[in-house]
């Protein structure tokens, strides 16, 4: 059985609750490091028909597919979702908008051209918004889709985020089941660049099967290789989402999310090597049993330092983080590499 079939079988056992089509899946505000400054951001997750790749199998760690709608929202529904999301930013006078679906904003099947045009033109009209970031799989990053977006976004900065996850084709294929190659990513990033569109790259620390040390080294290499095409890199820390293959493994003691010490190490090493690249990480679920974590004592503190660094890009924020569990993590780096298919769960 292939990895995709395994993922698909787990997907098909999940039940998706009917949800209102005119309300976004999630909206929140926060702060991000944007082009040298700390800025307010509004993040909106559109409820669309869902990621096409997730529907035919999809990625081993992704539970976002269950945020999709049971039936395709209409153009009006999507615009309504946008307007509801915008309400959350009413107190901001300057902010950036980050748009996600549970798949690709640039996939016409998820967001029809009319909806895309309408939403982008509304964004362009709003003077408070200085930058828009949308996420998409690389196959939808084409000359045509760039033309369409740029036709609306004239005075607003535009950035496309791609979930590359890793620069290793082996890991992306056999551990993540992502369904595209590094070459596909490079092509997409070049199209964006040629159109003057910035590229943000999402990476994934510690997908299944690979050891803590392998995961760490993979991120260091991936940041280096992605930085050629993208000067903003955000490293996601793999967590255990409901209805995923990873959850299936985790329930059986066959997966552990990464240590926070690992991302601290990655940030230090990559930032030192590439000081001009923006390297961030949002430690979602830090300290939880399904999330990235150190020991109970230091997880919160270390996660805060990671968030601080992500905003400041200042390595001083990662200094002086000490805890007894660091010794354990150092041992895990060595031993998890030699456990031959049974991850060290501590």
């Amino acid at each position: 059985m292939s990895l995709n079939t395994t993922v698909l079988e787990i997907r098909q056992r999940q039940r998706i609750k009917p949800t209102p089509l005119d309300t976004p899946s999630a909206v929140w505000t926060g702060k991000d490091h944007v082009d040298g400054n700390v800025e307010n951001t509004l993040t909106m997750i559109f409820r669309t028909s869902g990621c096409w790749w997730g529907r035919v199998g999809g990625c081993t760690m992704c539970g976002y597919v269950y945020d999709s709608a049971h039936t395709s929202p209409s153009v009006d529904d999507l615009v309504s979702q946008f307007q509801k999301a915008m309400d959350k930013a009413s107190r901001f006078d300057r902010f950036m908008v980050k748009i996600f679906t549970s798949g690709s904003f640039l996939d016409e099947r998820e967001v029809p051209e009319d909806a895309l045009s309408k939403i982008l033109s509304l964004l362009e009209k709003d003077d408070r918004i200085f930058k828009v970031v949308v996420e998409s799989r690389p196959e939808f990053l084409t000359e045509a889709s760039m033309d369409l977006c740029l036709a609306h976004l004239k005075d607003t900065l535009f950035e496309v985020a791609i979930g590359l996850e890793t620069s290793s084709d082996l890991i992306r294929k056999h551990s993540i089941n992502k369904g595209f190659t590094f070459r596909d990513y490079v092509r997409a990033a070049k199209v964006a660049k040629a159109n003057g569109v910035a590229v943000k790259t999402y990476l994934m620390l510690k997908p299944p099967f690979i050891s803590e040390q392998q995961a760490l080294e993979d991120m260091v290499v991936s940041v280096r290789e992605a930085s050629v095409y993208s000067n903003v890199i955000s490293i996601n820390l793999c967590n255990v989402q409901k209805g995923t293959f990873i959850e299936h493994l985790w329930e059986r003691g066959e997966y552990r999310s990464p240590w926070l010490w690992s991302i601290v190490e990655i940030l230090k090493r990559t930032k030192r090597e590439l000081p001009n690249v923006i390297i961030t990480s949002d430690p979602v679920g830090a300290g939880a049993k399904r999330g990235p974590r150190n020991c109970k004592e230091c997880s919160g503190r270390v996660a805060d330092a990671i968030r601080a660094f992500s905003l400041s890009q200042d390595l001083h924020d990662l200094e002086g983080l000490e805890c007894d569990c660091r010794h354990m993590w150092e041992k895990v780096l060595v031993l998890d590499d030699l456990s031959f298919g049974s991850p060290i769960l501590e």
Partner: protein
Amino acid sequence: MTRYFEVYQRDGAARKGRLLLDRTIETPCILKTETLKDHNGHIMDAGSLWEMSNVEKAGKRLQQLRSELGEDRLIILPHMCLVPEAPDIVPETLEMLGSNTGAIGRVYRKGGAIKAADMYILEGAGVFENNAKALMERVLDLKESTADDAALYLPNICLPENLAMLVYMGADVLDTTKATLAAYKDIYLTHAGSFYLGSLSELPCRCSVCVSVTLLELKKMDRISRAQLLEQHNINVMEAELALVREKISSGNLREYVDAQCRIRPWLTALLRLLDREYLYLEKGTPIARNTEMLANSGDSLTRPEVVRFARRVQERYIPPELDVLLLLPCSAKKPYSISQSHQKFSLALGKYRKFVHEVIITSPLGIVPRELELTYPAAHYDIAVTGNWDAEETKWVSGCLEDYLSKHKYNAILAHVDGAYRKICEMVANRLGLEIHFTSTGSVTSYESLRNLSKTAGELCIGRKLSETKRKAAMLKAIADYQFGKGAGKILVPDNSEIRGPFPRYQAFCENTQIVTLIPQYGTLAVTIEGAEMMVSHNSHIVRIDDFIPKGSILAPGVLEADPAIRQGDEVFVVGDRAIGVGRARMSGKEMSVSTKGQAVDLRHVKVK
């Protein structure tokens, strides 16, 4: 197929062996896990495809390592470890990677390609701590799919508490991963379980670490120094347990040790029971006889392979002598039964009627022991915890054995000189089969009254066929021959005109003044002469076929063309080649002889050139 691993002693699935690398490593052994990355180590991991990212690189890495390390250091081939629940996505090209020369280890994945190796590593073994069934299934699957003479490495699972069981299940190589991680969590390991250091009031160990430091000092130390000391203690405990287990394999009583040790954790007890259900897996490595005691200390002794094998062989191979009266007797603490005080009294009470009766002894855990087999392992070797109360499982097992016997073999009269639980069993079986049993005991079986009653009842019932003293001795040798070599062997080795010489129990059977067999009292088995071996060739059992050479002393496994898979370690075997015939004792099972490329197969006693 291996040049780098040799098994020289077995006990069930457990074994003692040697990894023949630049340094000889005695197995079972515990690897310090970190040393697998050490270029000066004896066993080295070539690494993972996850980090090397393509098979070509992995191949180059392997080549480079081999030229650096030489042939006599074991290289774990580049792997792409998944977890047990993952679908099989390992590229075939990776599985094709090999090393034409030199010692190699392979990660074994269920359902994956099977290629030769000196050592197999069970992928994801550590996931199955606490999951007896899954672990056993994976280990048995690996063992069935790979050669007997390869070492088995179970990574990331060993603790002092489970080490004995893992070795009993067949592990040759274990590691220190769990012991190290425990130390970094302030966990103090013992063979009787683990303790949080904070909860201890003293250090329950006298290893070098524990005598060098007090608990208080340990608790006050900084974390890293404490972790290092705890790690050393945890490994010390594991090493001590390992040494003990190796001794237990040598002395042939690992089962007794595991039977006790497994009570530490329910999953280990479950594992013992599940393994017993895999009778053939354990039995094929269990020597046919031992000269040590077999202790039946727990209810789980009823299912141990020695007990089940004895009962099965009695059921399948035993033919009673031609007599019309059966006497059922209780077992005795002293073995063999016939030298016990109680059995001496029974014999005296029977007097001249003894010739007419066939005696069968009822016992737990063996079920029933026909008098002819009372010397045969483990009948003369077991000891059991006696309380006088039989539990339901014991009663069910023993009555089942008796019922099987009585439904197969018919007598004109059945006497039972038994009391207590033995009597209940006899009554149960008599009821079930509609048989009449004459009970002769009136209270205690050795009371004057009971013995008189036995004598009187025997006098009334003992008519019909009887057995002379010589025939009785011959019947014993015949029964042992059938037990040992299968039905029909007794008739061949102890034909009707045999003469039996020697005092009990050192019987020897002669045929026309030529010695054929000798009874070995400490095992209760037969040793066969070369003439006996020649007679046995036609029986086609326990035959080891060799090429056209004249063997001397011992036969090594590579010299064996084919061997009867029924052969067990310690069995008497008949060596047959174009130029010679011989007889000796098996040092490994028949299947191992056929497939192994290393190790002593047969200790020869006699050879005759054709």
